């Protein structure tokens, strides 16, 4: 209970789902060998943390920010640029962290304090504008960021695939730097999610919920809500930047498409809504569903598209083409906002407890 901060999943199905996802992620290197499975699993870990940090804003304070990928990108680029410039060593990683986190923090603080001065309703639009300016900036400052191509870099020795700790003949699978990196990603993501769970279930997190529910009354109780909101903004930004750092370490690369683009922002929105806003657990469910679907359903769509093309059905091949993946997600997104505003987690929690549980 303490580790979950007194906020258990409160649903058997949900608990089971979460345990399955956790175990699967934990065992991925051994039960689903192959680069693709590992990539998907690592991405699920990273996005679960990223989406959970977004949920702190959307679900717990009720404010829509479009700048979350900006912080994610800051983290990614900080690591990438540091390792690119200073070479593949741990000092460079430390330098990236030391540069990235304060930058994310300062920007979050600036946006937070600025949007306090203006109408609350401007917040979403202002964050969208700032994020798009940042995206342009990142692709223009190519001497620093590598422009559209991004920055590839070498990892420190310890994390490279070539570094073998346990040779293949022991378990049938070589335990190497790549697997170590995976477990670093896994552990760091899990820690971040647990930390966020703690934050939302702390006295501070309750104040955030109070502000979302009735800001006026929260102030009447004596809370200076502007500070709470700005604080939450900064926490979310720092976690997003940390997730971005993991992303860069895993990919050995940072570029606009993998860390900054608007479509990642949409992915985050989709995951948080599908999983369930204001639950933190929803982030894990949302990220797992979304990324599995993205990686495995797309192949299905490709097959369907080809079949439709062969059958000579007009229009359908275009609509079912794997590149049109977002189209279907968009429809799913609208439907879930409309029909399942509480997402998977909300649905499972609201269900009457199973008979055996009484």
């Amino acid at each position, binding site marked *: 209970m303490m580790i979950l901060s007194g906020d258990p999943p409160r649903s058997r199905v949900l608990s089971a789902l979460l345990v399955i996802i956790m175990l699967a992620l934990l065992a991925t290197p051994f039960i689903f060998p192959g680069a693709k499975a590992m990539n998907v699993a690592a991405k699920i870990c990273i996005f679960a943390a990223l989406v959970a940090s977004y949920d702190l804003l959307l679900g717990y304070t009720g404010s829509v920010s479009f700048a979350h990928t900006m912080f994610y990108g800051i983290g990614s680029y900080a690591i990438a640029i540091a390792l690119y410039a200073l070479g593949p060593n741990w000092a460079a990683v430390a330098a990236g962290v030391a540069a990235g986190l304060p930058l994310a923090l300062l920007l979050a603080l600036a946006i937070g304090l600025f949007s306090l001065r203006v109408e609350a*309703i401007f917040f*979403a639009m202002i964050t969208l504008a700032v994020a798009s300016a940042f995206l342009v900036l990142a692709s*223009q400052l190519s001497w620093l960021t590598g422009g559209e191509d991004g920055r590839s870099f070498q990892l420190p020795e310890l994390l490279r695939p070539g570094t073998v700790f346990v040779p293949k003949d022991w378990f049938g699978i070589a335990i190497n730097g790549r697997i170590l990196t995976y477990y670093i990603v896994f552990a760091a993501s899990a820690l971040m999610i647990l930390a966020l769970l703690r934050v939302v279930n702390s006295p501070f997190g309750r104040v955030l919920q109070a502000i979302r529910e009735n800001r006026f009354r929260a102030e009447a109780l004596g809370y200076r809500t502007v500070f709470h909101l700005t604080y939450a903004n900064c926490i979310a930004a720092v976690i997003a930047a940390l997730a971005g750092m993991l992303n860069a370490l895993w990919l050995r690369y940072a570029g606009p498409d993998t860390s900054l683009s608007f479509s990642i922002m*949409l992915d985050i929105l989709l995951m948080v809504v599908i999983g369930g806003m204001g639950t933190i657990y929803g982030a894990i469910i949302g990220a797992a569903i979304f990324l599995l679907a993205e990686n495995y359903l797309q192949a299905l769509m490709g097959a369907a598209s080809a079949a439709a093309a062969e059958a000579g059905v007009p*229009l359908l091949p275009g609509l079912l083409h794997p590149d049109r993946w*977002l189209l279907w997600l968009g429809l799913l*997104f*609208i439907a879930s*906002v409309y029909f399942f505003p509480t997402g998977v987690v909300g649905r499972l929690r609201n269900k009457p407890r199973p008979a055996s549980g009484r």
Partner: protein
Amino acid sequence: MTEIAATDTLPKPKRDIAPVLLPIALALVMIPLIGSVSSWATLTVASLAMGMMIFIMASGLTLVFGLMDVLNFGHGAFIAVGAYIATLVLLPLASFAQADSLLTNLVVLVPAALLAMAVTAALGLVVERVLVLPVYGQHLKQILMTTGGLIVAEQTLYALFGPQIIPMPLPASLRGSFIIGDIAIAKYRLLAMLVGLVIFVAIELVLNRTKIGLLIRAGVENREMVESLGYRIRRLFLGVFMTGSALAGLGGVMWGLYREQVHASIGDELTVLVFIVVIIGGLGSITGCFIGAILVAMVANYGGFLVPKLALVSNILLMVSVLMWRPRGLYAVTSR
């Protein structure tokens, strides 16, 4: 009709003209900074033309918010759809468009624009009914629903038209410039300015001289009272939403011709610009939107000329400084 002389009126509230003077002052300050009068004139004309196009796109968004308190994050989709629809007419009839006679050009251009507006208006009808109607009064859901709508619209455009950039050449008679002394003014920019100005004047006339306009202004202030006087404001709002969508579509056509190409992502690009404009102008204010559009275009053009590096963040700087001056935008709509 008895007209009563308004000699004995209460003190009239002072007209707030500082925002109107802002772009004028900005333009004047730029003369010495830019140095050459001809460059300045070209940039100013470019700003005005670009500003008018952005205004056309943004006006619907700001009216919809003012009247019904609806935030439409999918507004950019109408812009993209408008541009694409126009290519359906312009490309097959390219020979007309590239003929050397203005009349022949217009024979394709006008139907293209009208078709684009008709389609976007119809799309507006669907969006309002399907996406907006269920989430009245809930900003968070409005943002989410309309963002979803934007994704779907954009992806459908990719599916229908392909991901490639579609060229959208300017008709022959709109190419080139008028030369006055050593100042060159592109013909198309003049046209854009003209269309934008006509639309601004038309909107102002409708708002201030017609009963519909009276209803819209009254509805912005107090919806319930308008209904209590016997007017169906839902229908009025749908009309405004469709008009706004059609204007966004027209803006998309003009922007496509201005850039001479179309891509589904123009919706994204312009959404940001349009948002900055309506925030600067004050959500709900047409005059504010007009001035905001010109300011954004001026900063983009002058800034791009003087300090190209700064042009990237110039819009943000503009927005920040305007909001520091007036936290609710240039002309805040008072009722909310």
